[in-house]
C-alpha cells in the first residue's frame, strides 16, 4: 500500500501550488500514472480520499490518466505504444526493446479550482 505515500505527496504538492496561487479549493485533481509506475489506480483513489481529509482537496474529484508503456523500436526506428505491460516488444514487428520512453510517470498534472468566490475576473 505505497499508494498512501504517493497520495500524501500529491496533497502536499497540491497545497503548495494552491498557496502559491493565492488559495482556494480544488474541484478536480488530475494525475498522470504510467502503467510501469507500480501504482494501482483504485488504491491511489482510496488513498487520496483519505489523505485529502481536512485539506482544500477534500471534495476534489480525482481524474487519473493512465499512460501506456512506450518503447523505442530499433527496427521500425520509431516510438511505439504497447497494448499492455509485457512483453517489451514492438507490437508491429515483434522486435524486443528495453528502451522505455514512457510509462513510468507519476505526475500531478493540474488542479481545477472550485468556482466559489472566484469570479473577480
Amino acid at each position, binding site marked *: *500500500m*505505497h499508494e498512501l*505515500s*504517493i497520495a500524501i*505527496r*500529491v496533497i502536499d*504538492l*497540491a497545497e503548495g*501550488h*494552491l498557496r502559491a*496561487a493565492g488559495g*482556494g479549493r480544488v*474541484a478536480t485533481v488530475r*494525475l498522470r500514472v504510467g502503467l*510501469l*509506475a*507500480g*501504482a494501482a489506480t483504485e488504491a491511489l483513489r482510496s488513498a487520496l480520499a483519505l489523505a485529502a481529509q481536512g485539506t482544500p482537496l477534500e471534495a476534489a474529484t480525482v481524474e487519473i490518466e493512465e499512460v501506456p508503456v512506450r518503447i523505442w523500436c530499433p527496427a521500425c526506428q520509431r516510438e511505439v505504444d504497447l497494448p499492455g*505491460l*509485457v*512483453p*517489451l*516488444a514492438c507490437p508491429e514487428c515483434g522486435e*524486443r*526493446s*528495453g528502451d*522505455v520512453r514512457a510509462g*513510468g510517470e*507519476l*505526475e*500531478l*498534472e*493540474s*488542479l*481545477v*479550482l*472550485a*468556482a466559489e468566490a*472566484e*469570479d473577480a*475576473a
Partner: protein
Amino acid sequence: MSGPRILEVRTKILKANDELARAMRREFERLGLLVVNMVSSPGTGKTTFLKETLARLAARGEACAAVVGDLETDNDARRLAESGVPVRQINTHGLCHLEADMVAKHLEGWDLAGLRYLFIENVGNLVCPTSWDLGESVRLALLSVTEGEDKPLKYPGLFNTADVAALTKLDLAQACEFDHALALANIDAVRPGMRVFETSAKTGTGLDEWLGYLANRRATLRAG
C-alpha cells in the same frame, strides 16, 4: 464568463525523493562508492545472498556495509552482522518500501569515503519499492527458483526498473521443477537484454561472477 481556473502544475509526485536520491548518487559516485539497491518479494533469500556477498567482499579486503529495511524487527541486521561488516537496520513500521531520506538518515556517522560497496536491502515487496530511487547506482532484482517462473510477468515494473537480476536458491531448482529457460525468457520479456546471475548462496554458485560484475561496475564510477 470565464471557465474554471486551472493550475497546470505538471509536477513529478516523487520529485523531493528523486532530487534527494540524485544528490546522494552524485555523492556516492564521487566517493567511488558503489551502492546496490536489492529488491524482491519476501522470502527470495535477499539476506542470505547479501550475507554471502558481504563475507566474500570482506575476505577480499573490500570495505563494505549494508542497511536493511524491514517493517519490524532487527533480525536481518543481526544475521548480516555475522559477516563482520557494519550493518544498520531501518524499521519502516508498516511502510512497504524504503525512501531516500530514510537511507540518508541511517548513513549518518558512517565514513562513506572509507567504503567501496554499500548494499541496501529493500523491504521484501514486488510492487512498492519500484518508484523510489534510493540513490543507488545498481538496482538488483532477485527471483528465487521457489517462486515460480512467471513472477517477472506478474510484476513487470520491478524487473523493468532493475539494472541486473539474480536467480537465487539454484540448489533447490530440481526439487521445484524450476524451468530455467522459461524464467530467463520471462525476465527478458520485461527487460530485454538484462544480465542475470544464476546463484545459490548455499553452494556459492554464481557468486564469483556477481562479485566480478560489482568490481567492474565500481571501476566505471571512477572512470565516469
